[in-house]
Each structure stands twice: as structure tokens, then as C-alpha cells.
């Protein structure tokens, strides 16, 4: 009928993209896991029906409240709206209650959250300076939007970064404290943000070469910052401290009773540690260095259990992981204290903090990797090296999420979406950095291509073999270990690039 016109409208591409993502989500709404809905229903119910003193003690459902108090207050507010949809969902014993009105309410809240997300992304894109005359698909903000929108990821980091770029530090600090009180996973990046604020904000001036000028320390600013942060925490935790429930709350937030690893090992250092331990124990038994009767029962045939006892290598305690995490992020923190590089340096440090906490943390969920990928995507559209690292990390981490969607029905979807994202990031970043050779070196390409046989084996070939019955955990373990290698590699490369980057005085696009 009619010809296709070039996509020249400036703003409408954003809406087209946003709508496209929303449409897809609508279609997939049937596939949303019921557990997510049940978790939220339970939290709505208990914040609504129970008094505050009971919130962190309630354990009727298995999905206990394990987010910080501000989130609980948020759920409490939401429950008042939920009242109008269906009062029955707010009754705590109604486990797995799913009337049509309930489902509608849940879906609407998801959509509203998405709208907020889109807005945040849009704001973020404003920070990037556009070159006129580049075609649409090559524009960094387009790529960024796609990368962010299609990242099933987190929201408010963008908002904060937006604030940062416009030097609205107070708002940024406030938002971050709020964020921290909403989801304590942001503790991962709190050190980076804290140090950065301290360094760049409380010390009002730097020397010409970027180093610290001690005399420019502003007590006023420190006090204001401290007040903001502390008051946010007070509002959030206050009632619980007053009730003397702080230990209980903390124990819910940081469940150290759970094992070192999730039931499915997140692809971090401990996955590699576990596999090394298993390998040593098998070899030890083979070469008769170890007595098989002395080893813990589960280590030989058991798979991914939560309470993992190491047989050969020393067991890991929560304190050990904390120490390792701090050690891993300390050099980065020191670097930005010493020579902050503006927003770019902060972002890099942010990524490293998030990655470091992911790599060495206790009972890490693989979704936590998204915390590192989002800021990295901002860096990726600006620098070649970062683009390469981003590709490695994003593809590996997306693949590591595959075991979360394990039904046959979701198999095509996850493969299609992953291919979609990979091809898009690859092609667009390639176009963006056309000059200067390939983004990925041959080793990285081989590694990424190796994901294809891995997927084929784990999902298609392995279930048909005899070992499926005896060692059902093997595909998960393989996935976990393979991805851990990729993530570690990215971590190391990022660190190298942070430590070796020269202090730049050239104008960065972010500032």
C-alpha cells in the first residue's frame, strides 16, 4: 500500500519503543510466575491486617517480609488501594488467593511501575549529548534506551544518575537513602556512592590535577548529607528500633542462616570455589588420598543444596564473604577518593562495587547482576573498551538467568528474547564504534559462542540421557560455572581499566 518512511521523528521513537515493550509484556502477562504475585499479595495482606509489631515476625506464608521497612510502608499504602479491588486478598491466611480482581490489581501495579521506569529512562537519555545528523539507530540514547528498557532490571539507579549529572547532590543522596531503605540490595553500591559523595561533594574543590584538597572540606555539607541519610533511616527503621525489633528485622533482611549459595549457584566466585571443592574431593577419592566415608554425605551425589559443606577446601562463613567483598572493592573506592573522574569514574566505581559484592557476597541471587549491568550500559555507549566488557558481561549474565525460566513453554521466549537483545547490542554498539576494529577479541568471541553448545546440551541433549535421573543438577552446575568464568573475566578487566585509566581533563559527555 504505502512506502516505508525513514524514522526521523525525534521524540516518537521513544514512545514507539516504550509501547513495543509494554505490548510484549502484556502478551506475556499470562506467563508471569504466580510466586511473584503471591509474594506481593502476602505482603499486602500482612501489612494491612497486622499491627506494625508483627510485620517482621509473621511467618504463615513461606514468603516472609525480607525487605527493609520503607518497602513495608509502601506495601501498606498500596494495600489501601487494593482494598477497593478485592478485600479478600488482604486476609493473611488466604494463601495463593487469586481472584480476577486481585490479578487485575497486580497487573495494573506492574504497568504503573513500568511507566515510572520509562520516565526514568527518558530522563536519563536527556543526559547524553546527541550528535546531530547521526541516523537514529546509531544514536547513543536510542541504543541506551533499548538496552535499558529491555533489561528486565532496576529503576531508580537511572534517576540517581540523572540527578548526578545535573549536580543535584542533595536529591541524589536523598533518593539513594530512600532506595536503600526500599531494597537493601543497593547496599552493594552504597560504598561507592558514599565515598563519591564524600569526596566530590564535601570537599568542594580539587587541585588542578584532580587530587584532594583537604582544606576545602565543608562541614556544613557533610552535616546536611548526614542529616538527610540518617533521617531517612530513622523514618524507615524508627518504629522498629523503638519496639526493640532491630535484630529481628536485620535477621530477616540478611538471612545468614541460608547457605553460601542459592539453590541454583549464582555465577560468582563461590560457584567456582564449590566446583573446585567437588573436583578435589572426587580426585582425592580416586587417588585414595581421602576416605570416602569421612566426607559429608551430600558432597558426592547431592547437587545444589543450600547448606553446602565443603569437603576439601575450607568452609566459608558469612564473615569471610564480607571481608572478601570489602577487600575486592577497596581499591576501587580508594581510586575514586584519590582521583575522582567525574561521573564517568563514579559509574565505573559503581559497577565495580556492584560486581564485587555479587562476586563475593553471601547467598547472592543471580538477578543481582543486573545492578552492575545497568550502569555499565551507560558507560558502554561512550567508550569502546567498556562496550566490549558490557557485551561480555550482559550476554553471560542473561544466559545465567536462563535456569530461572525452566518450563518448556518459556523456552522459545527466553531464547528469542536473548537473541534479540544480543543481536541488538552487538549490532548497535558495532555501528557506534565503527572505527577502531572489533569490539571483542577472539577469545571472548569463542567464549560467547560456547554458550550455544552449552544451551543445547543443557536443555536438549542432557534431559534425554541416562544421567538426567542420577545427576539432575549437572546442567545447572555447568551453566553456573561457565558463566562464573565470564563474570570473573569481566570483573578483572573492569578493574584493570579503572586502575589504569589516566586522569582525564577532557570534557566528558556526562558532565
Amino acid at each position, binding site marked *: 500500500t504505502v512506502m516505508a518512511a525513514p524514522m526521523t521523528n525525534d521524540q516518537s521513537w521513544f514512545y514507539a519503543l516504550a509501547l513495543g515493550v509494554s505490548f510484549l509484556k502484556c*502478551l506475556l502477562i499470562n506467563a508471569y510466575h504466580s510466586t511473584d504475585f503471591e509474594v506481593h499479595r502476602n505482603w499486602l495482606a500482612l501489612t494491612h491486617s497486622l499491627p506494625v509489631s508483627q510485620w517482621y515476625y509473621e511467618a504463615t506464608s513461606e514468603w516472609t517480609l525480607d525487605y527493609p521497612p520503607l518497602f513495608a510502608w509502601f506495601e501498606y499504602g498500596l494495600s489501601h488501594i487494593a482494598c477497593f479491588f478485592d478485600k479478600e486478598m488482604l486476609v493473611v491466611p488466604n494463601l495463593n488467593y487469586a481472584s480476577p480482581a486481585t490479578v487485575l490489581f497486580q497487573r495494573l501495579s506492574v504497568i504503573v511501575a513500568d511507566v515510572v521506569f520509562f520516565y526514568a529512562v527518558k530522563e536519563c537519555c536527556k543526559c547524553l549529548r546527541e550528535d546531530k545528523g547521526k541516523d537514529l539507530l546509531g544514536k547513543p540514547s536510542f541504543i541506551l534506551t533499548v538496552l535499558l528498557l529491555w533489561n528486565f532490571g532496576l529503576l531508580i539507579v537511572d534517576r540517581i544518575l540523572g540527578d548526578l549529572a545535573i549536580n543535584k547532590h542533595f536529591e541524589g543522596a536523598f533518593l539513594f537513602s530512600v532506595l536503600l531503605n526500599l531494597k537493601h540490595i543497593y547496599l552493594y553500591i552504597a560504598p561507592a556512592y558514599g565515598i563519591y559523595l564524600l569526596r566530590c561533594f564535601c570537599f568542594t574543590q580539587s587541585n588542578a590535577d584532580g587530587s584532594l584538597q583537604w582544606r576545602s572540606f565543608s562541614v556544613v555539607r557533610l552535616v546536611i548529607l548526614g542529616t538527610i541519610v540518617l533521617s531517612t533511616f530513622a523514618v524507615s527503621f524508627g518504629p522498629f528500633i523503638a519496639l526493640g525489633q532491630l535484630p529481628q528485622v536485620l535477621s530477616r533482611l540478611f538471612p545468614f542462616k541460608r547457605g553460601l549459595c542459592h539453590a541454583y549457584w549464582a555465577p560468582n566466585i563461590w560457584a567456582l570455589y564449590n566446583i573446585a571443592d567437588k573436583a578435589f574431593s572426587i580426585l582425592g577419592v580416586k587417588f585414595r588420598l581421602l576416605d570416602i566415608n569421612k566426607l559429608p554425605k551430600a558432597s558426592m551425589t547431592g547437587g545444589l543444596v543450600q547448606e553446602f559443606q565443603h569437603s576439601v577446601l575450607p568452609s566459608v562463613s558469612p564473615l569471610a564473604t564480607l571481608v572478601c567483598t570489602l577487600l575486592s572493592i577497596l581499591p576501587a573506592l580508594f581510586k575514586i577518593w584519590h582521583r575522582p573522574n567525574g561521573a564517568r569514574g563514579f559509574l565505573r566505581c559503581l559497577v565495580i562495587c556492584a560486581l564485587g559484592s555479587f562476586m563475593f557476597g553471601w547467598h547472592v541471587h543471580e538477578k543481582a547482576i543486573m545492578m552492575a549491568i545497568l550502569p555499565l550500559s551507560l558507560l558502554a555507549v561512550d567508550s569502546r573498551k567498556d562496550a566490549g566488557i558490557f557485551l561480555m558481561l550482559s550476554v553471560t549474565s542473561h544466559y545465567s538467568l536462563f535456569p530461572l525460566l525452566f518450563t518448556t513453554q518459556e523456552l522459545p521466549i527466553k531464547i528469542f528474547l536473548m537473541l534479540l537483545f544480543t543481536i541488538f547490542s552487538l549490532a548497535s554498539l558495532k555501528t557506534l564504534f565503527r572505527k577502531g576494529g572489533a569490539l571483542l577479541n577472539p577469545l571472548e568471541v569463542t567464549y560467547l559462542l560456547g554458550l550455544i553448545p552449552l544451551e543445547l546440551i543443557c536443555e536438549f541433549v542432557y534431559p534425554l540421557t541416562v544421567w538426567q535421573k542420577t545427576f539432575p543438577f549437572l546442567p545447572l552446575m555447568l551453566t553456573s560455572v561457565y558463566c562464573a568464568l565470564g563474570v570473573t573475566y569481566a570483573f578483572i578487566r573492569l578493574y584493570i581499566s579503572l586502575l589504569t585509566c589516566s586522569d582525564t581533563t577532557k570534557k566528558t559527555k556526562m558532565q
Partner: protein
Amino acid sequence: MENWSLFSLCVLLGLTSRWAVSFHSYSGAGKPPMFGDYEAQRHWQEVTYNLPVHEWYFNTTNNDLNYWGLDYPPLTAYHSLVCAYVAKLLNPEWVELHASRGYESHSHKLFMRATVLFTDILIYIPAVLLYCFYFCDGSSKQKVATALCILLYPGLILIDYGHFQYNSVSLGLALWGILGLGLGWDLFGSLAFTLALNYKQMELYHSLPFFCYLLGKCIKQGLIGRGFFQLAKISLTVLVTFALCWMPFLSDPKQPLQVLHRLFPFGRGLFEDKVANTWCSLNVLIKIKTLLSRETQLFLSFALTLLFILPSSLKLLSKPNLWQFKLALVNSSLAFFLFSFQVHEKSILLAAFMLPLLVKDGLLLPYVVTSLAFLFLSLYLLSALERSTEEELRLGLYRKLTRHWLPKLNLSRIIKWKFWFSLVAMAALSFTSVWLEPPAKFPDLFPVLVSILSFLHFLGFIIYFNLVQLMEPQRKKSQKKTN
């Protein structure tokens, strides 16, 4: 961005939306005793696997034709047979004779959906990609945009992955036929189209343009000499293909007759249900279904169909080029849809007009989403509205005619307004059909309104496209082709 990446992104988006729609319900889900089209396809697998060929189309003790008897040509039957073999490997219960009637399970649904996806990837999607690559003008981005629009076409997705059918096979084969003709490979094109015809008899709607195009081309090459040889080769290809497809049925003269009887059920009357064609809409005013005898109805529909396809076919015969061919395809299928006998609403495959059917299948959500998406996408990508200047609409001649009666009218503005009006009307009708209760005196009010609205649109389209094809104003080589 490079071509390959854009095209693969397109395909992936198309595949994702298809599979996402397949999560939803299918035709006749959980509705005994008859269920729906999904059960029909499963039943055909059961019949073709368990019974010998000569019993497939006959009413026997093992094969009750009243319960979803086969009413598509042999190629569909063979396809069902292949699927049945796979089904037997996975779970024999799915194709147990008699015992598997009304079988419904999650894994079976996955299997059936997977078969649709498989044939889609094999036949339809490559055809679309090749078509956009070779026959679309413009930069590669515009080609990709067109490919995306075609792949995201809601009608096909909803029918095939929601309601449950295998239209992508016949449409894909027909598209291969068009591709073949466009590239000058007449034999390949005829082969592909004959296969399409043997898959679903609905493709007869397209057969006349194919025939006229090829005949016209042969005549142009001279009926004595090359043209004649070409004609002979094409006819031979077609006949041999038919023979091969129908081979198991040619042993006994009763067989082909019975098959034809199943394919063209003239005993069923002028129309069933609510279809957006002339007869159904006319029936609202004059009860022609009861007024006229069956023979008269047949004659009337035949005559009118012929009347509407003759001009376009003759024009194609005289000027066999690709542009005329494509227009003739549209005209011919519209004419058949509007005027022929026993038309099923699926024959039009236009999502927005099939609300009643889809709501019945519990597919309201996918319908809304895909239609909106498609609309938005085509508006955005193809800038449809911007292009509706008079040139593009090729209505220069038309304008001259109407200038006498309707001076001072800006035709493109009218078209734009009409478009928005239609959109609002469709949206309003969709909304009311779902949320409001019809008055007791007219329980079928909303489906009928939808049919009539759609019918008026189609009538307008057929007139418009006929005008475009017949008038063919002066155009330079560099002008764009239509789809």
C-alpha cells in the same frame, strides 16, 4: 546497522510475538462436546494416522464426518499425518482412535503450538523476508520496516497461534508462488501456488490472477513459438503437481468426487454465522437466505463474483506486469470474499473485523494488543497518514471526475478523516461488544454491526483498488509499487 542484524531482529520480534500469543487460549478450549478448530486439527491427525487413505473423506464407522470431518484438500491431510507421527512418538494418547477425542493437556497444547511455529519458520517467514528483500523499493531500512509490519500482522498471528490453524502454510506457499512469478521463475511459481491450492481451497481466491498473469505473459511472448511452449510447460507442471497430490485418491472415481464434495459444501447455504460480506449484510434488510431458492442463490453469487473479478482479470491479461498482478490478487480475493458462496470469515484474515470470533475464543487480550501494536507500528513505520496525498493514492483521474460534483474538497484530508473515523468506530464497536449487553430484541446486534461496518469498508476497498488497477495513470519507472 547492518542488514542481517536488522532482518534477524525483525524475525525475532515476529517469532516472540507469535509465541507470546500462543500462551493464551485456543479455539474451543474446554468446551465439550464439539470444542473447536484446535480439536479439529488434532482429530485430523488421529484420522489420518489410524485410518487408510481411502477412508479419510468418507463417512464410516471409524470416521464420523459430523465430528470435524476433513474438509481441506489432501495436502492438509498429509501434513496432519506427519504431525501425527511425531505426536505418536511423544505421547500415543494424543492420536488414539476414538479415545483421544477432546484430549486437552498442557503438553499437547505445547506440541500443537510448536507444529505451527515450525511450519511458520519453514515456509512463511523465509517467503516474507525474500519478498521484502527483492520486491520492496527503498533503502534497506524501509525494507526491514515493511518486513516487520508483515510479520507482525495481527490477523495471521491471532488465527494461527491463538484460534489455531495453519494458514501460514498456504499463505506462505502462495507467497512463494508470487515470488517465483516476480523473479521470472514461472514454473517454480506455478508449482508453489498449486501446492498452496492443494493445501487450502481458499487459495482459489488467488487463482484467477495467477492464471491471467501467466496466460497474459505467454500470449505476449507469442502464442506460436515461445509462448506456446511456456504455456505447455506451465500446464504440465500444474497437472503433474495435482496428480502427485491426489495420487492416492485417483484409484477410484468415487474418491475425488467425495473429496470435492467435502471441499465445496454447497449444501450448507449462502453463508453461516456473521460474515462481513454482501450476503450477510444484505440479509439484514432482505432475508435473501429464505426468500430465494438454493439454485438462485448459487447463480446470484456466481454472477456477482464473476462480475467483480472480470474487469481486473481482463486488465491483467492485457498487461501482465507485477504491479497489475498484485492489485489483481487483492481485487480477486476481495471479490470472492464479498460475493461468493459459503464464505468463512477467516477468509479475510483481518483482525480488527473479527472481534466476535476472537472474543469467543478468549483471545480478547491478544487481539487488543496485537491490533493496537500493528496499527501503531504501521502508522509510525510506514507513515501511512503522511503518504495519503493524492499522488500516492493515484486518484488523479478520480479527482477530475468528482470535481464536477464536489468542488473544493481536499481529497487527502477526506481520506485522513475517514481513516480516523473508521478507527474510532472500530474501537467503539470493540468496546461496546465486550462491555455492554445487547438489547434483548437483537441479541446479535454487535456482531452484525461489526460485520456491516467491515462490509462497507471492504466494499469501499474493492471499488478503490479496482479503480486504481483499471485507471493506471501515467507513472514513471521510479514510482513505488504497492504491496
